[in-house]
């Protein structure tokens, strides 16, 4: 069923409605002239120490892989050790790239901003996402500190709404910043009454 874009009469005009005909042949890579995205990036970066935290987390993953490799080395009875070297080299190269690139990339992406009315985050690296939750719908505000985060004086703030799909988490905040944020969010959430669904 071919459908025609038809903004409702009471609606503001859309900036760029989609192409009208399905199945029209493509004339090259037509990257549409997008208007400036209506949503800017969140204002604040997370702490620089978050890079260290993510690096340590990546190294933990590598350590687990190394342990697996060692076990295999000890258990394997075959005379040839070539497969061990190949597999080991593969994950070592991949892991090294991961441990170097991922934290930097994450740090560049991770941003957050909270206003009295809403919280807005940007996170991820290969998969990135932006989340917005109005504070009127907030149900709980959590402050979490994992072992690595504690060592580095960092904390994560999680804001939960009534939807199981919508928790908003900011990793790698400086502890004082995180405490302040939690207080501000809690105050804002308390000010708002109602069912929050």
């Amino acid at each position, binding site marked *: *069923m*071919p*459908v*025609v*874009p*038809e*903004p*409702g009469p*009471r*609606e*503001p005009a*859309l*900036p*760029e*409605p*989609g*192409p*009208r005909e*399905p*199945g*029209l042949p*493509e004339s090259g890579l*037509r*990257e*549409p002239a*997008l*208007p400036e*995205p*209506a*949503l*800017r990036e*969140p204002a604040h970066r997370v702490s620089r120490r978050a890079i260290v935290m993510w690096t340590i987390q990546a190294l933990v993953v590598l350590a687990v892989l190394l342990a697996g490799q060692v076990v295999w080395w000890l258990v394997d009875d075959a005379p040839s050790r070539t497969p061990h070297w190949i597999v080991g080299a593969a994950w070592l190269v991949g892991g090294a790239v991961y441990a170097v690139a991922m934290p930097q990339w994450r740090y560049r992406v991770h941003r957050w*901003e909270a*206003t009295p*009315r*809403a919280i*807005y985050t940007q996170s991820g690296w*290969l*998969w*990135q*996402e*932006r*989340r*917005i*939750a*109005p504070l009127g*719908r907030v149900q709980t505000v959590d402050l979490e500190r994992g072992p690595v985060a504690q060592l580095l004086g960092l904390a994560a703030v999680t804001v939960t*709404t*009534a*939807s*199981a*799909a*919508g928790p*908003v988490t900011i990793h790698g905040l400086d502890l004082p910043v995180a405490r302040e944020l939690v207080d501000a969010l809690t105050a804002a959430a308390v000010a708002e009454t109602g*069912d*929050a*669904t």
Partner: protein
Amino acid sequence: MSNGAGPGDEAGGWRRLDARMLLVHPLETLIRFLPALLAIVIFRAGSDDNDRWELYAVPLIVAFGVLRWVTTRYRITEGQIELRRGLFTKQTTTARLDKVRTIDLTARVHHRLLGLAKVEISTACGGHDRLVLDSLSVDDGRRLRAELLHRVDPAVTGLPAPTGAPTAVEDVPDDAPPPVDEEVLVRLDPTWIRYAPLTVTGLASAAAIVGFASQGFSRFSEERSVFRDGATWVSRLQWWVDVLLLLGVVSLLAVGAYVLTFWGFRLTRNRLGTLHTRRGLLTSRETSIDAARVRGLRLDEPLGLRLAGARRLKVVTSGLLREQGGSDWLCPPAPAGVVTPLALRIRPDEAAVSGPLLQHGPAAQRRRTSRALVPAILVAAALVSARFLWDWHGSVLVLVPVLLVAAVALGRDRYRALGHSVTPDHLVSRHGSLDRQRVVLDRDGIIGWKVEQSFFQRRAGVATLVATTAAGAQHYDILDVPVAQAYAVLSQVSPDLLAEFA
């Protein structure tokens, strides 16, 4: 809010389960342990032991039932429903009345013989705060349901309370009309049963029955020549007769499952807007959904139904549990000419329910096609290499073009399904080919947004816009929408939110 006299009332407004549950409980225990009992009987057949020691279990089971009846009480008091259970570990569950979302009355065959029903009360917080009363008499169950959903004193059943604070009864004008009038929105037409074999649900239940039956058969097939002869007879037939036979059996089973589940299906709405479904041939089930908790509709058009011009309707509401299969159905598979008007009566927004949608453009189309084609190409390559490396039969190569054509068709169909629109009250999203669904979500029900982009989505300039909600699947996605359109939707639905970060 206090509740006055009712049968079974005791001090403090506590009420008990219906005494007839004492009969139901041993029966259910018996059914649950039937396999074990059968095993004992079969085992005994081979021995000389005449000691009927399994009979000792009967008084224990009865005593357990009595204990449960004695220790289980519930009451409605001060805006809460309280359920108290247990002898040694006393367990009290409470739920605020204004958090009650839906109420299910389920009556299996033995319940129905005794005029009983199991009452399940779902609250906002899902599984944790679910109250189960097993069982009340049907009348008590219905009365309880009316009390909970309408939050009125039974003495003034005529006065509806607006949802929200349970104290708001005074808001209702004295001359409010009586509430009895229920309008029937849809009633099962027996001819709809023809759609049963076209749905995955129908096929899955058929497959379950076949699997169960084949297990049973295999146990006897060694002794009984009937089964062996039957198997030989089937294997001698032409292959297409076998296929037809299989289709026939599966269809029959799917029809059977449909009849069992949906027989007598009826959807009604009372004056307060509470939706009420009733269905089932042997196990009857009644579900009541508070109108204030409904956050939208979902029109399902899986491929089979779509080809037959049919669809089905579900409700998007908070407080229904996912494992309660089928509680959210507002209409079983039925002709589109029935389902669409029905959806319009519940959400009178023609543009949202059946209007055209905005398409997502060439980038989305490329992504749909490549995502359908890549797995097909991999499988095709595997087939070709199997043919030449391991000498598989040449006929597998026939599958290659079939596979590729099917993948292209699937990709095209998936792209055609893709779309969204924003109406003054609703956000509409549609996607899927084999399991196409169109979700009409109330704009009020959206409690947050996500804009997700994978690496490839960023390169293609598209994103997945996710509206989170407390109802239904908790989140509804608009797939592969161009980034600018995603933000346009955001600015239409939540302009104030966007203004914060523009």
